[in-house]
């Protein structure tokens, strides 16, 4: 399977995910200690943009003006953020050798397929009368209770 076909397959999988699932994947990638996988981030953002074309924030020209007026040239306490692992090594995620690139792509594909399969199975089970989500909710409540008790 060529990379191009792989990319199309991943896009198709993302297109079947709910908007909240896509947002959760972005949140997870931001909180992970690993460097960002820009192929995945780009695909997720493109899918999100398609579903929610309107951006809530300041338009780009206004934001650029704000940057020049209020930010440009001022001090930042985070200069070392440009030195941290992930920023320096990020070039390898895109420009690394071919096998690494393919490996990350396959991992991405497998992860996306697993997520979709799990959710599809849950929905099918729910539709055929098994209260999967109810059971999960109960389990969650129990966990919270256990957590609260141990916390005390």
């Amino acid at each position: 399977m060529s990379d191009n076909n792989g990319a199309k397959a991943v896009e198709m999988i993302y297109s079947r995910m709910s908007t909240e699932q896509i947002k959760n994947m972005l949140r997870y990638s931001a909180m992970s200690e690993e460097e960002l996988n820009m192929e995945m981030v780009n695909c997720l953002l493109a899918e999100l943009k398609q579903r929610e074309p309107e951006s809530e924030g300041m338009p780009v020209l206004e934001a650029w003006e704000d940057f020049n007026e209020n930010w440009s040239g001022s001090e930042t306490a985070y200069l070392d953020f440009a030195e941290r692992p992930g920023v320096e090594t990020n070039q390898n995620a895109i420009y690394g050798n071919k096998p690494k690139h393919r490996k990350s792509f396959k991992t991405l594909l497998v992860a996306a397929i697993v997520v979709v399969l799990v959710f599809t199975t849950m929905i099918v089970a729910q539709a055929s009368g098994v209260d999967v989500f109810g059971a999960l909710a109960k389990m969650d409540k129990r966990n919270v209770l256990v957590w609260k008790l141990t916390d005390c």
Partner: protein
Amino acid sequence: MNSKEKYIEQMYMANYDDMLRFASTVLNYRDLAQDVVQESFLIAQARADKFMTSPEPRGWLFNVMKNVIGNVYKQQKKLMNMKQSLTETRDHGELELGFSTKYKGMISDEELQMLIWVYCYGCSYAEVAERLGITLSACKKRIQRARRRFEEALNKDL
């Protein structure tokens, strides 16, 4: 305009929308997300040598922003903990801070108050400006300064 400024502007125009979408999704607070994007470009400006020679500048920017987001979370957590030990009467539009923490002298009561409004209550900058009776632009600058001071105070605390 020199080549560095041109490059930063070009990258800003090309990446701003996606960066803001990413930050807004992760942080939920719009103004805070906006700040995170601006801070990332400020870092890119200050580290232009590294940024401009990166073979993947978009990835560079996003990873810098990821680090800034991680830091915002760290500050938010610290403020949430601190907030619990402070006396507050928010209904009257004011936070009366029983302020006797170890950060005294490093960050003013007002700066801490502003950060708590933004980080803990998700107030917009416009709301904070209105409460303090200052312009939006002045408010942005004060919050920016407050974040810097708080970061320095936390670093000294380590």
